[in-house]
């Protein structure tokens, strides 16, 4: 059936397009042109395969078709005809020297794919452009799929991709793996893009369009691909570990009516132990590569502490405190400090935690962050300062935009209504 072949071609495209585009980019030295050639090959496949059937080696077929289109393109371009004739000849020579197209596709593709990853996340591009380009070129997603996942119109995403390729061409961004000096910073932005995609999917709740939670799988796949391409980079394994462990909780993070369920209230029996094992293995791999712990390794270590605790009471809070302290040094942020305060409270008592939280309140940077008063209220309640606790929960309720969360916070506030010195027994 024609429709079945189309879906098969979709699948083949998803499997083959990253390597195809990567190899073509190396050969023609222009990402936009490479993608156009790859798309031409896809169109040819859509025209021919329903009749002739899917070829035995679809990747090689697409590559051969793209290469022929490339030669035609160079021949037709009259402005730089001579230069392109040279390239075209070089092309043909390469073709004759490599009669086995399979080998041509495998040739250096690992390096090519890595170069494609770095160029997709080039700092000359906006973050949204990096995300769109990465999902398209490495993830093999169609524009329409990316648009659905990010709740944007398809035309917007298409425009982003077009503009991104134009920017890369205008700035003559080279198709290369960044040198040692730049590598850490460039890698950090690649990891940032992948984690952004993951969080977009992670924050989507069940019951929404299935494309959104599927972003977590896409991000995980991208992370694993990167780990294979750059096996000496501990932060890549750190990110993969972090995502695997967070994904292990995806089934129990949301209640039946869509309300978020906090870590401490989740049914740990339904945490995916396979994902946890994989996450811990990736983390172990990262630690073996380097004793220096980067931000993703640290976050993964924190997630691992929770993952290893069969009950909330078994959580190794003192270790989490140490990890947050290290994270605060490397990647300081008010949110990290707040999390550290929570960990300190769990490890050393609410008074110790409250001291840190009060210091944050003075700072004003978390002024409108609704979790801050919520945390403060919780600690005050534990210290039996109930009037103050109530005020904090009311304040937290006023700051949150989530209706269910607001309801829960107001309920907590009402438990300490003026006039009752003790919460009602339940």
């Amino acid at each position, binding site marked *: 059936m024609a429709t079945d072949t189309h*879906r098969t071609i979709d699948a083949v495209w998803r499997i083959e397009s990253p390597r195809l585009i990567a190899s073509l980019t190396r050969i023609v030295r222009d990402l936009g042109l490479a993608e156009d050639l790859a798309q031409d090959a896809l169109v040819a496949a859509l025209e021919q395969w329903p009749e002739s059937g899917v070829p035995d080696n679809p990747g090689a077929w697409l590559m051969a078709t793209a290469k022929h289109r490339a030669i035609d393109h160079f021949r037709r371009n009259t402005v730089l005809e001579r230069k392109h004739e040279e390239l075209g000849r070089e092309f043909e020579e390469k073709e004759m020297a490599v009669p086995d197209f399979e080998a041509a596709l495998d040739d250096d593709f690992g390096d090519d794919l890595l170069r494609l990853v770095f160029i997709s996340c080039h700092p000359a591009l906006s973050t949204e452009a990096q995300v769109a380009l990465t999902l398209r070129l490495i993830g093999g997603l169609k524009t329409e799929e990316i648009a659905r996942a990010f709740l944007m119109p398809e035309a917007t995403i298409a425009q982003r991709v077009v503009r991104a390729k134009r920017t890369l061409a205008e700035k003559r961004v080279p198709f290369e793996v960044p040198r040692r000096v730049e590598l850490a910073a460039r890698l950090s932005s690649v990891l940032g893009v992948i984690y952004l995609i993951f969080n977009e999917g992670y924050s989507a709740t069940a019951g929404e369009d299935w494309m959104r939670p599927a972003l977590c799988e896409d991000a995980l796949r991208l992370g694993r691909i990167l780990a294979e391409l750059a096996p000496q980079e501990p932060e890549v394994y750190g990110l993969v570990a972090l995502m695997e462990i967070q994904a292990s909780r995806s089934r129990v993070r949301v209640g039946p009516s869509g309300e978020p369920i906090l870590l401490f209230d989740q049914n740990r029996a339904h945490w995916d132990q396979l994902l946890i094992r994989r996450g811990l293995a990736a983390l172990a791999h990262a630690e073996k590569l380097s004793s220096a712990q980067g931000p993703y390794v640290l976050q993964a270590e924190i997630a691992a502490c929770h993952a290893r605790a069969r009950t909330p009471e078994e959580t190794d809070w003192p270790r989490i405190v140490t990890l947050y302290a290290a994270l605060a040094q490397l990647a300081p942020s008010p949110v990290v400090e707040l999390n550290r305060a929570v960990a300190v409270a769990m490890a050393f008592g609410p008074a110790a935690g409250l001291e840190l939280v009060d210091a944050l309140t003075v700072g004003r940077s978390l002024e409108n962050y609704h979790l801050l008063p919520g945390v403060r209220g919780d600690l005050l309640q534990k210290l039996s300062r109930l009037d103050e606790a109530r005020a904090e929960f009311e304040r937290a309720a006023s700051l949150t935009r989530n209706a269910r969360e607001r309801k829960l916070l107001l309920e907590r506030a009402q438990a300490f209504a003026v006039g009752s010195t003790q919460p009602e027994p339940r």
Partner: protein
Amino acid sequence: MRFMMMVKHTEPSGPPPKEFMDAMAILTEEAVKAGTIRGSGGLGPTAQSTRVRLSGGQIKVTDGPFTEAKEVVGGYAEFELKSKEEAIEGAVRFMELHKKHWPGWEGETEIRQIFGPEDFAQQAKEQSRTAQKQAS
């Protein structure tokens, strides 16, 4: 979407040729590089296997070999893919490998989606919808 692929063939098929094992190693490596494979393995012969059956309120343990079975599961692989078509494409390539590097080998790869509770719930919904349609 998660898929379990089970390779079935008639026993005994003998050890696979080295050429096949080399090609399989490359195919597996590609799946690892693509970030899609979750696990895989070859299964030992049924001569060394055991079955535990519950029937008529009785549990019975029986050692292999089991001569009544025409085809046995020889191996498995678990994948995380975007669509069933991707799974089929992968299985086709896997079988092509057998055709090319293990002449005479015959068998079948069965592709089953791994259902989570949400998938079972979805299936139940669809079954009741179909039943309602048939009843009206």
